């Protein structure tokens, strides 16, 4: 599932692994979207992948638990595990080097 609110090449590319509509996953999706919309409006891409449907993909991304958010771009790759409710920490990871 691709979300690319902007037409320009996004500067932030994220992938979020979730488990169906399980509560922590639902929370993580809404937290990620809220932070991105607020701080990276029109310049981000967020892909949401269901672990239950794509376990191999998760493993190849080094993901073994959900929810896990991966920052694919810019490099280096970063991961955040959990419901992403700590906005400050999330911002640090997303914006950091």
């Amino acid at each position, binding site marked *: 599932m691709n979300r690319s609110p902007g037409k320009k090449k996004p500067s932030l590319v994220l992938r979020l692994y*979730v*488990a*169906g*509509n*399980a*509560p*922590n*996953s639902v929370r993580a999706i809404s937290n990620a979207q809220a932070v991105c919309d607020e701080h990276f409006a029109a310049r981000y891409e967020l892909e949401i992948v269901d*672990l*239950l449907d794509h*376990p*191999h993909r*998760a*493993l*190849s*991304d*080094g*993901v*073994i*638990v*959900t*929810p896990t958010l*991966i920052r*694919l771009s810019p*490099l*280096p*790759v970063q*991961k*955040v*595990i*959990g*419901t992403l409710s700590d906005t400050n920490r999330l911002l640090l990871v997303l914006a950091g080097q």
Partner: protein
Amino acid sequence: MSVSSLAEPRTLAQRLAEAEATIEALLSGQVDAVVDPRTSTPVLLSKAQAALRQSENGLRKSEEQYRQIVEATSDGIVKIDPLAQVVFTNRRFARLLGYQVSEIVGASLFSFMSDAVKSTLLKSSESRSSGGDAIDVALRHKNGAEVATSITATVLVDDAGMPVGHLAVVRDVTEQMKLQSQLMVSDRMASVGTLAAGVAHEINNPLAAVIANLDYVSEQRRLLLDADPALRLYESFLTDIKGPLEDAGEAARRVRLIVRDLKVFARSPEEEPTSSVSVTTTLESAMRMAWNELRHRARLVKDYGPVPEVQVNEARLVQVFLNLLVNSAQAVPEGSADKNEIRVTTRAEGNRVLVEVSDTGVGIPAAIIGRIFDPFFTTKLAGVGTGLGLAICKRLVTDMGGELSVASEVGKGSTFRVALPLMSALTTQKVPSIRPALASARRGRILVVDDEELIVRAVERSLGKEHDVVATMGAREALALCARGDAFDLILCDLMMPDMTGMDLHAELIQIAPELAANMVFLTGGAFTPKAREFLAVTSVEHIEKPFEPANLRAFVQRYLRVSNVPALVT
């Protein structure tokens, strides 16, 4: 299997940090699922599992709720695809057509319509927009019968807005249509009632004059013939006019009977006294009256079950049974009484008494059976029936709080069923006063008050020989006579008069000459204002209905004078 295909190989520090974050997330309950790297199988943690289950349950529950609504509604619900094939239906729709749900799903909705209905529907659907309006469609029941329905259809579209079929809500309107047609009938009956009241009034006044005068002429003719030998010259003439006079009298009496029958529709049943009546006794007396009609046509079979008494007006019930018996007899061709049967059955059912009159006659074609209770509807030859008999029966039975119905098969016969409630709502009981009869006629002084000159003259002629008749054309004139001290043994007074009514005169007389008020008898033409109706219901003043037979009027006056307390002041 590689754990990481991402661009950079991770340092040990990074891996440790990741592991720590994972453990932290696990401990704080923020993890939903773990994927087992050996089997690549995702495993939901029990909490997430429970939550998912709950939401699935919720879905199931809400689905169940919608199901219940769909099944509980009194309307049929059908979902069809663009080719009119049924995709879904509720039980109500299936039951409406006499099928199981499984028999309907997969079938074409058109297969439950006649070809005619189908083509009309297809034609009209072209001109119809997306729907929303209810259309009347006759569907076909499994047993072949037509079911009248009203269908509201909505177009169903998919996410892309493409039509994927229709959702139809089907309402059974059979009952509604039945009620509507009943309403139309009762509407029609109400207009007949209004018409009858008017006609009765307009006809009865002149008719009273016709009958009374014909009677007078006949009487004069007889007297002439008897009395004066000098008139023998005219004997053949006088003899010749006897027949025409009798015919005219007969014809006038027939008019009177028709008008009297019509008045049934205009009358208010509350005015008629009711009593506990034995149904079988009433039937027996109706049978005696109808015997001449019955005996040449059919055997009469009585099948009386034990039934309780009903609270009705006995004369009216006799009228109902008499009409039904004569009607049955007339349905049977004459001459083979041994092959035909009229069966009269009584039985109790619940809180009703059922009386059935069945015949083995010609039966009633389905096309006209709906109209047989309509006034003036008749299949009999002119002169044999007026078309009022069954209409009157229906009206009378309805007024008794009962029901009159018919079942018939052409060639086999008909059954008329009267269902009467055990306790009628009409409990008012009025016992007519009976004046004891005494001997010897006496001459009285009689005041006649009627705005109709014909009536005044007819009454004068009818009573003039036996009594002293004073005629007035209005209540004011009559009041003036009474006020100046004239005495009358009897005041025959029209009830409804333009300027001052009979009721007004009565009220005035009570004030100025109560003994005269007590001697009043009203002449009524049949049409009553509500006020007059009310007055007659509570007053002790007697009334005579127009048209009256002169002989009956004379007898009434004699009877009245015999028991009158006020002696005549005139010699």
